[in-house]
């Protein structure tokens, strides 16, 4: 087993991203959708950190961005969950395919 290279991390990020997208598009539960979005965030964060380590090791921009992403993800989760709460109160359910009142 040799040292993991940049490619490994990118593949990991891509897998996470693909999983996130799949979840985002297929989950009917709103909480599941939110979780999938977290996966997407994390995939992006892994990419940032990986590029920071292998491409530009002198700076800390990648790492700082990753911290930002985590912060934003936390805030997004708070807002998202409260929206889910309200959806539940108003529609007695959190299935996203049912909640289509924003159409034409």
């Amino acid at each position, binding site marked *: 087993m040799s040292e993991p290279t940049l490619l490994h991390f990118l593949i990991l990020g891509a897998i996470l991203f693909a999983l996130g997208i799949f979840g*985002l*598009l*297929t989950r009917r539960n709103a909480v599941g*959708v939110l979780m999938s979005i977290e996966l997407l965030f994390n995939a992006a964060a892994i990419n940032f950190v990986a590029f920071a380590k292998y491409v530009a090791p002198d700076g800390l921009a990648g790492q700082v961005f990753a911290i930002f992403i985590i912060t934003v993800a936390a805030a997004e989760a708070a807002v998202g969950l409260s929206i889910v709460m309200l959806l539940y109160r108003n529609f007695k359910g959190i299935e996203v*395919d049912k909640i*289509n009142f924003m*159409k*034409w």
Partner: protein
Amino acid sequence: MVNSSWLIPLFPLLSFIMIVFWFSKNQKVSSYFAISMVLLSMVVSFGVLFEVFANPEPFQLTFDWLSWSNFRLPIGIFVDSLTAMMLIVVTVVSSLVHIYSLGYMKGDPRFSRYYAYLSLFTFSMLGLVMAGSYVLILVFWELVGLTSYLLIGFWFEKKSAADAGKKAFVTTKIADLGFLLGLVILIFAAGTASIPELNALIESGNAPLTLISIAGMLMFMGACGKSAQFPFHVWLPDAMEGPTPVSALIHAATMVAAGVYLTARLMGIILVSETMGILVASIGAITALMAASIGLVQNDIKRILAYSTVSQLGYMIMILGLGGYTAGAFHLYTHAFFKALLFLGAGSVIHAVHTNDIQEMGGLRSKMKITSLTFLIASLSISGIFPLSGFWSKDEIFAVAYQGGHYIFLLVGITAAFMTAFYMFRLYFLTFTGKPRDQHAYDHAHESPKNMTVPLIILAVLSIFAGWWGIPWLSHGFGSFVKFGEEAHHVEPNIILMLISLLIAGSGIFLAYLMYFKKSISAETMGARFKPIYTLLYRKYYFDEFYMAVIVNPTYKFSEFLFTFDQVVIDGLVNGAGKLTLWWSWAKERFDTLVVDGAVNGTGYLSLALGKAIRRTQTGQLQTYALVIFIGAVILIFMKFV
């Protein structure tokens, strides 16, 4: 004084403006203001007269009204002896008429307006005689015509008065067309309309005489209209519908004399060709004879006087045509006073008996002493009885005609003088002597108030003495003052001619005395014996009927034709154009609705339909959106690599 002569017409103008804009509510203020202003004019006029008398050099004040390149139209004031004399005549008669009207127009609802008109007239007339160029004369000429129209139709509720005003205006207007044409030709031919310049031009002998003669002839046509000469005389008798003081002022003493004044001013042109002189004299002679003969049989007191005026104006025109500048002006001067007196006396009579028909009067002498006495003086004066002023002026006319060898005109003059004496005394006897023929009117008759009789007395004095200025034996009389050219046109006093004229006048009076006072010759029998002549005269030679048939009615017919033409053709064209426009608008409206609006609406509909179609994509399904975003991102990335 002569330097400030331009003030003379301005006083009455001021009075007119003040009355119209401020005093019209207050009759007393209006009338007294008008009177004081015209008296002021009279005072200045006398000052001017004395100064011109001392220094006969004409006074001029000229400035250019219009000028471009080498054409200029000067206007201004020209005061010579003729003007000075006219100023006196106008202001004196006007003042007396102003005062007289206080009594005559008393209680009239339009009293103030009457004085405003009188002031306007006085202004225009004074402007007319002072004007220094024919252009300015024309302006005032039309102004006096206007005031004449306004005053004839002063009682416009009466249809006859309104009609008379219209007739006067239209008749004089036709004649004025000649004046205007003549003026244009004059300016074209001589290059000037200024009186002194024109006279100088003719004297120098460089003038295009033929054209100037034509111009003079046309301008004389205007004078004929204003002075009621044949064939324009028809308006003056009808003009008697106006208030009597107006008839005295405008239609006896001053405005109708404007034509004579103009003819006198045109003297230089008239003397150029002998034919024109004879033409002028002939028109005057025809008028004098015709009007006098009509006057013989009329029954309306004012109409008799009107025909008398026409006849006397004919005298003046006739003698001017024969070159008697002094004689014409002198007769104008004396005639103004005694004719004004006759009219004012007639007004006094009408005021007393409320009728114009002398057949309903009679015996008024005992009731109206002052009126009858002054009327008698005026009648004697106009008949030419020694030594009243009418005698001297008429004699001057005869003397000029005799000296020039114009015996036919002399004969006409003498015949007219005989008729004048006859109709004046017929009028006098029928009105003031004999038995009253209308007892009711007689019982109510009374002498007029002082403000009417005092002007009568003053005019009577003038009718006697004004002519003494022109006694031919006087070395510095009228003839040496008002004269044409450098040398006085001296007329030899002819005693035999004087005696003849006196005899003629006396026999006219005597015949009237026999017929209407002693009744030894019955007027009715005479009328019956010469029935055709009587009717012809009574109907005024059928001039009115003739004009009605030849001019007025065809004009009406022509107007009706034009009206029909207007209705059918012009209106048809206009209406057709309207219809076409309407149709065209309709077509455009359709185009607008269908094509233009169609395009606009079509755009709207298209957007709507497109929107309808596209909004289907807005499903509200969060995951669909996410899918679309994802696919889009993938496509973008692929495009980056491809």
